[in-house]
């Protein structure tokens, strides 16, 4: 009896060891692939650059060894890209759309390296690609949500970098759908997406003009926006679950970007020798990888205060985007500053 148990344990252990070893046996040479990311800021910003760092970390489970450079200034972009590529990095990422032009300069010299601009909006064959999520779709959902939750029928968004395509998409999507749902949308641009104190002032100024739901697409400054909402007790949307923790009764939802999912699929194919030279945008229409999702907490999409009818309306919107029945393409005019 004892003997047979120990024997089966032994067998199970051998089987487990073999299973564990299997991936390593399957692709022994690939384990040496390297991936790097260049960040415009520091991994500590609790927002955009922290996100870039988490993208890089997620590639470890795809068999990459990783490296990163922080605070890469505009002037240093090409040198930094070149440096990683010439050291044999298979995937070199730039954590902002602004890296695209530097990549276009450098890429022809390193035809085996895949360059990826996070949240860019263009590619260049054969090996420069941009990956982003559909800001217009999620911006639209926030617009509908904000309009439905507003009592004053005035809603507002605070953004940085007027004219950058994904900002135009989200701000414009927000205004289009908020207006459709019967609210007046005001959009305000701040000069620094990292300056929380300035974003808080922007939020307070919008609240003073009657807005009672705030949204925005900012980096470290997003916390300032939530702080303004908290001080004046109005609803707000965030960009991370820790913003829900800052004001659980006021944060309606967050747009949680799923970069690991967007990058994982690409990285696996690059490992197998495929290169990408285009702009890939994920959204409800590219399920199962949708690029982003509305999340209030780990288990819920929306704040429990949001009525079921509104939640249903947002689900219907998502379904319409998924099927292609609903399409929006916000313009600069839709995303203009002001009311």
């Amino acid at each position, binding site marked *: 009896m004892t003997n047979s148990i120990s024997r089966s344990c032994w067998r199970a252990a051998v089987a487990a060891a073999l299973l564990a070893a299997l991936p390593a046996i399957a692709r022994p040479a690939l384990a040496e692939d390297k991936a790097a990311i260049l960040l415009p800021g520091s991994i500590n910003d609790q927002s955009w650059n922290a996100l870039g760092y988490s993208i890089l970390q997620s590639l470890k489970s795809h068999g990459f060894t990783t490296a990163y450079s922080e605070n890469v200034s505009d002037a240093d972009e090409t040198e930094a890209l070149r440096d990683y590529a010439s050291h044999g990095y298979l995937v070199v990422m730039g954590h902002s759309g602004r890296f695209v032009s530097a990549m276009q300069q450098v890429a022809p010299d390193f035809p085996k390296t895949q360059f990826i601009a996070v949240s860019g909006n263009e590619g260049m064959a054969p090996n420069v690609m941009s990956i982003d999520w559909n800001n217009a779709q999620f911006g639209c959902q926030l617009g509908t949500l904000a309009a439905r939750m507003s009592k004053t029928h005035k809603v507002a968004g605070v953004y940085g970098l007027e004219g950058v395509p994904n900002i135009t998409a989200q701000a414009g999507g927000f205004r289009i759908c908020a207006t459709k749902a019967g609210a007046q949308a005001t959009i305000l641009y701040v000069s620094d997406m*990292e300056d929380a104190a300035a974003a808080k002032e922007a939020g307070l100024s919008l609240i003073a003009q009657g807005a009672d739901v705030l949204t925005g697409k900012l980096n470290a400054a997003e916390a300032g926006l939530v702080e303004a909402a908290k001080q004046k007790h109005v609803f707000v949307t965030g960009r991370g679950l820790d913003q829900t923790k800052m004001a659980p009764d006021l944060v309606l939802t967050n747009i949680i970007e799923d970069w690991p999912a967007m990058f994982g699929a690409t990285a696996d194919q690059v490992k197998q020798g495929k290169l990408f030279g285009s702009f890939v945008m994920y959204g409800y229409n590219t399920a199962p990888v949708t690029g982003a999702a509305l999340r209030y907490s780990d288990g819920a999409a929306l704040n429990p205060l949001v009525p079921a009818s509104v939640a249903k309306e947002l689900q219907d919107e998502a379904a319409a985007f998924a099927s292609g029945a609903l399409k929006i393409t916000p313009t600069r005019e839709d995303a203009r500053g002001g009311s």
Partner: protein
Amino acid sequence: MTDFLAAAIRIATPLLLAALGGILSERAGVFAVGLEGMMLAGAFAATIGAWLSGSAALGVALALLGGAAIGLTVAIVAVRGRADNMVTGLAANILALGLTSYLLRVIAGGSGRPVAIHLTPLPPWPIPGLVEIPVLGPLLFDHPPLTYLAVLGCVALTLLLGRTQVGLTLRATGENPEAVFASGADPLRVRMLAVVACGAIAGLGGAVLSLQQVGTFTDGMTGGRGYLALASLIVGRWTPWGAAAACLVFGAAEAFELRLQTFGVPVSSYIVQMAPYLIALAVLAGLGRTSRLPAAIGQRLDG
């Protein structure tokens, strides 16, 4: 309108504290280019102090120390080491940016993991009685503690500079250090102390941003406010109330910029956002000929 003025006061508060510190430094004869770094160190120390201890008061105390540490660095290099004031100040700003970012990781980050600190910002302290006054009450007497401190700082610094022996010695050190030396005081020591005090007070300005307005620290969160404070104290002719007026003008410009956009003016947001800095440049250019620097500012002290 009340709301607009309240915004101007809020935006001006961190600038004013930094400018008050800068006045001490410049009146003693040392250019206060390092204000940005001192503010940043103060903002950082305040956040870490309040976060680790759970006490906002301890956060404020640490802001004084954090700013003073950068002040001491500048004092040692620029005053005792007789290095160029401008270069030293700029280097201190870069040092503070790197150091705070690094220390945030070491203290709060553990294994290099990004961190998130969220503190409840300092609440307003309405002044009983005065806050009941219509319009003016809520505008002037319903602020968080560091805002009152900035105003008290103006009063205190005005008295210090104009009415005390210490103030006289400090001003003399900026105008004619040889005379101070002849009178038996040590101008080197006066300048060292003035720059350290400048750092401590500018550190409080940083604490306004992190503890009072936002409740967290992010890399480089001062975002150039130290330079705006420097401009304010020059525009204000090195006097506390003059600097306060200049800070309010810059605060009003920024508050106006935010509101101008919502009126839907057909101008790019990038242009509108330049307003506060354009005003600063215009005023500085206008003052160029008439503003009189302390005579011995930037001069090395021998001996």
